[in-house]
């Protein structure tokens, strides 16, 4: 079902923040591509740079302090990073939709759901008010909001967290985006509500066929949703592979460790959880060595001197690691 043509090709993005304590190297040269209709899972812990990477693509970061030092992002024949704000505005919320983690703070509390749904359609698709309203109701029904016709005039605080996230999804889908970037869309929700949202996204993906970038720290969510997974650590992608390959045959020591630390839901209870020692890296230092080296069990001299590049191995598997068991 997946096509091989890329819809988004990102090359070597470097994003830094200037702070009082010095520079923060948030994203250190990230490259990936997204195929048509594909769901790419981006996994990483807080501070690994997963959100900053995606926000850099659409310049959604406050600049300054953020600074996109280099990089290219080819979408639809254009480089997103070279566009001025006027051009970008046509793409944000139009061809590329965004869902944020916290539906509490990403909806405007003083505007009705109707207004917030209709605005992007009038802006991007040039629809008139009544057409847009009709489509808005359709969208709300599509994401499973009961009595959409009556509820469209409600304000965000009338909705529960799960319902608000549905509204966010409806807004993101309003203009038929080719890419949907979902930044931890279910993290703030309870598991039973998360299960509802995951089902909706799975269904809509089949119906609408857009490509999705799904940012999360939850390896479980990605296992059930993604076609391909990229694992981030310290501002780099350290491993990238098709989902079955990554979980059955993780190659980077960080990914291996991460999968081992998770307790099982089935089978025998482990006597003791395996853990990754140490702390996540501080991003103040220049990434001249492998950022996982201080916590890694396989560290060699080279790891402390050179940052490994993300290189292809067999089975569409890419790993950024000097250690190679073969």
């Amino acid at each position, binding site marked *: 079902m997946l096509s091989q043509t890329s819809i988004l090709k990102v090359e070597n993005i470097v994003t830094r923040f200037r702070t009082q304590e010095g520079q923060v190297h948030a994203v250190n040269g990230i490259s990936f591509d997204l195929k048509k209709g594909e769901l790419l899972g981006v996994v990483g812990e807080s501070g690994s740079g997963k959100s900053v990477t995606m926000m850099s693509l659409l310049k959604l970061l406050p600049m300054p302090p953020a600074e996109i030092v280099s990089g290219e992002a080819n979408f639809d024949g254009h480089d997103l990073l070279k566009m001025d704000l006027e051009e970008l505005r046509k793409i944000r919320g139009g061809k590329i939709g965004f869902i944020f983690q916290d539906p509490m703070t990403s909806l405007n509390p003083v505007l009705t759901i109707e207004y917030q749904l209709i605005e992007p359609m009038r802006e991007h698709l040039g629809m008139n008010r009544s057409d847009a309203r009709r489509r808005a109701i359709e969208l709300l029904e599509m994401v499973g909001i009961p009595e959409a016709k009556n509820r469209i005039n409600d304000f965000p605080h009338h909705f529960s967290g799960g319902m608000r996230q549905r509204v966010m999804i409806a807004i993101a889908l309003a203009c038929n985006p080719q890419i949907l970037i979902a930044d931890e869309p279910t993290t703030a929700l309870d598991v039973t*509500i998360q*299960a509802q949202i995951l*089902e909706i996204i799975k269904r809509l993906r089949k119906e609408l066929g857009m490509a999705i970038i799904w940012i999360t720290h939850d390896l479980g969510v990605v*296992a059930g949703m993604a076609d391909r997974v990229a694992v981030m650590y310290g501002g780099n992608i350290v491993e990238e592979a098709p*989902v079955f390959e990554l*979980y059955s045959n993780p190659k980077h020591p960080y990914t291996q*460790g991460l999968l081992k630390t998770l*307790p099982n839901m089935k089978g025998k209870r482990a006597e003791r959880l395996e853990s990754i020692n140490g*702390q996540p890296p501080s991003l103040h230092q220049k990434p001249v060595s492998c950022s996982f080296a201080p916590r890694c069990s396989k560290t060699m001299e080279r790891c402390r001197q050179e940052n490994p590049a993300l290189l292809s191995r067999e089975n569409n598997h890419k790993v950024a690691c000097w250690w190679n068991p073969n």
Partner: protein
Amino acid sequence: MKKVTNKSLLKVDRLVKHFPITKGIFRKKVGSVKAVDGISFEIKERETLGLVGESGCGKSTTGRLILQLLPATAGKVFFKDHELNSIGSADLRKQRLQMQMIFQDPQDSLNPRMTVGSIISEPMIEHQRLDRLQRHERVEQLLNSVGLDPKVTNRYPHEFSGGQRQRIGIARALALSPDFIVCDEPIAALDVSIQAQVINLLEDLQEEFGLTYLFISHDLSMIRHIASRVAVMYLGRIVELASSQELYSRPVHPYTKALLSAVPLHDPVLEKKRKRIILIGDVPSPANPPSGCHFSTRCPVAENNCFKTAPEWREISSGHNVACHLV
């Protein structure tokens, strides 16, 4: 494995907490939020009882009621044969030494203007007669047991990462050598790679000091790992309680089944095969819970009776309790 004795350390009997909803300038009571609605359970010495449920189900309130941080509306809490609700404040103060709490957010629960040393020694100043040197020794000893460098006593909380801050919170809870600790979502704010470190630490400390835990969490896989018995809460009531092994392999309450099936597995092969039970709708407001069984509005198998009468809390096999008409 852990040496769980059969002696009960803590007993909760039909505990109720209703928070009043007030209106107008005279703060007239117009209703109440039924946060905890009549729950009973006991915790045995040296065991870990897991309390799971979604946000707003009353699990944190239960923890606070047990420690008498909130007055209960009705019901009793027995700790080592003392009835905590009725003993005087001086006696309660004595009992409190043996009961501590670890909080969710190590960012908010540590005073940013106090050094690590003074945070950990504060309970000792309050409750024990130790001189400066003895306190200092004890602080270093505690820092050692939670895996921090004893030299950090003069540093401030902001100099530490989330996982290290949680270790400071644990050291503070251990300062008075308690028997019982309420862990209120102690790992929810931590990164995945740090969670396992803290869980292992909690297990080691339990072994070393013979601690009993009430472990409150919404993370079902972590509860499966750490708890010997698990209670599942929904809208102020416990719906099912069983040994961890029993609950995860043979859940009987429809809510427990749905909850377990909603947890994403970190294995794409299993994920593709499995069938989820998707519950419809949201959790009703605890200010206005459904009559009868609280779960009836979302239950996929509810019958007429479920909407009318609340199910009884009964034992279906040894150590496995459930509240459901259809079991």
